[in-house]
């Protein structure tokens, strides 16, 4: 067992808080908004308006569900295109009313199915990447559990990308990487190590600005810390002229993989 694979297992651990827990414990007065106004309401993505102290914010999260019935209803946190389109709709609404956006990421990946393909899974993710890159309000994305590939990045183009200590964020699941690279899905532990998917790794790469210790499992205390962090960071981001903020957001991603060339 490698240290990286322990993080993967911790991120997937049964009973680990999901997006709704953070929404309820960090914010007040959350009003959920349903649907993408195109096709359907995808329960794998929750979103709405809440108060962060005295500041109205738009919150969007990928929600895996807690008990079995809810997990099934939420497709285990694997969103369809309409989930990403709901997220985009709410982010554009936030932009209109000048509200900061919080994204909570916890997914093994975007759903790979017939309906998802027929309704443009690739396009839905691509549109979010482009729109978030240009959004004129501050965005903070927090990876709370699994950051699964493009389906996670679709909520991850942000001014600040933060991770919890035991969250992971990867281009592909360790099992997927193992089966493609080593033709053996059983080599997930080796793949976890090779992929460099831990919060510490990504902080080292400059892809993540902050890593939050999980306070020995005291998630209520963690939420207090996060509330303060979100508040302070949004206050700081709001002092920037919009153009400068959007430029910095672009440059942050722009640098990745281009620095040493």
């Amino acid at each position: 067992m490698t240290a990286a694979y322990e993080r993967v297992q911790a991120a997937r651990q049964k009973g680990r808080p999901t997006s709704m827990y953070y929404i309820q414990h960090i914010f007040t007065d959350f009003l959920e908004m349903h649907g993408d106004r195109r096709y359907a309401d995808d329960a794998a993505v929750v979103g709405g308006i809440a108060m962060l102290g005295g500041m109205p914010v738009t919150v969007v999260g990928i929600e895996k569900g807690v008990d079995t019935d809810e997990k099934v209803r939420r497709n285990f946190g694997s969103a369809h295109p309409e989930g990403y389109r709901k997220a985009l709709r709410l982010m554009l609404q936030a932009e209109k009313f000048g509200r900061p956006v919080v994204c909570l990421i916890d997914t093994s990946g975007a759903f790979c199915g017939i309906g998802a393909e027929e309704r443009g899974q690739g396009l839905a993710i691509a549109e979010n990447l482009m729109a978030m890159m240009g959004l004129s309000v501050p965005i903070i994305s927090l990876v709370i559990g699994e950051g699964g590939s493009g389906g996670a990045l679709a909520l991850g183009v942000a001014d600040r990308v933060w991770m919890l200590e035991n969250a992971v964020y990867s281009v592909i699941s360790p099992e997927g990487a193992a089966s493609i690279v080593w033709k053996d899905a059983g080599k997930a532990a080796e793949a976890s190590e090779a992929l460099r998917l831990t919060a510490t790794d990504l902080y080292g790469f400059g892809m993540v600005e902050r890593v939050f210790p999980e306070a020995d499992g005291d998630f209520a205390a963690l939420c207090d810390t996060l509330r303060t962090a979100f508040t302070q960071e949004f206050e700081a981001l709001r002092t920037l002229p919009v153009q400068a903020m959007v430029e910095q957001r672009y440059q942050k991603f722009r640098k990745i993989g281009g620095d040493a060339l």
Partner: protein
Amino acid sequence: MPLISKDLFKKPNNALEGGVDAQPPAAEERTVTCSECKAVLPLDVFKAQAHVCPRCGALHAMSARERILWLVDADSFQEMDAALLPQDRLGFPAYAGKLRKVQQESGEPEGVVTGTGMLDGMPCALFSMNPEFIMGSMGAVVGEKITRLFEYAAAQRLPVIGYIVSGGARIQEGMFSLMQMAKTSGAVLRHSQAGQLYIAVLTHPTTGGVVASFAMEADIILAEPKALIGFAGPRVIEQTMRQKLPEGFQRAEFIMEKGFVDRIVPRDAQRRELSQLLRAHRKEGLA
């Protein structure tokens, strides 16, 4: 969920490319065999037809450089960033050796060729992906070259034509690969905000992280006949859904029927249509 699927690249439509290079270098005697209908063709005929079988019409793979040279006016292509080399940033097992091998086999340093050229006398920026370079996967250098091209084209007020073929992310570069989706999307956005035209031509196969970024962000999206286009590869979907996929699922014709592609354009019409589209978007024409 995998953003990359190896099986896509084992389709017979793509098999011929390797066969071309495998022929002994006996000059004018060289022939190729169509993997679809088994027709034996002189190599020069085959190349003159842009790798389309004259007997059965099968579209065979073209390398990134062949695509560009076939498309643009003679001697007009000027390559950019040709010296950017991939790096093994993660120290991923066996990656450095794999890169060396594929560089030798393909004769290319990375999975995309970028630059500027003229199409019927009209200037444009171009990128073209390499199907044979680790399955057209997007590593950091692929993302960087495409990003630089869009930035250059925005500054120089040039349209971009992109020939796309990709299995998606490059696993061996981990999150450096995934983040190229965000980076290229930002560059496409800025080029678009500068009022410039971007035309994507999706070829077989276009899947994974590339579909979920710059392949689907073009003003005009063209596709080659029968090209497989999708976020997830068919085998992954079959495993998820536990059912066989219907015939033609995710093929260009199906994707157009679902509303995600503007036009399907056979290879012999591509030059004409791209030229027509560039002409229709010429700014000086409005003066």
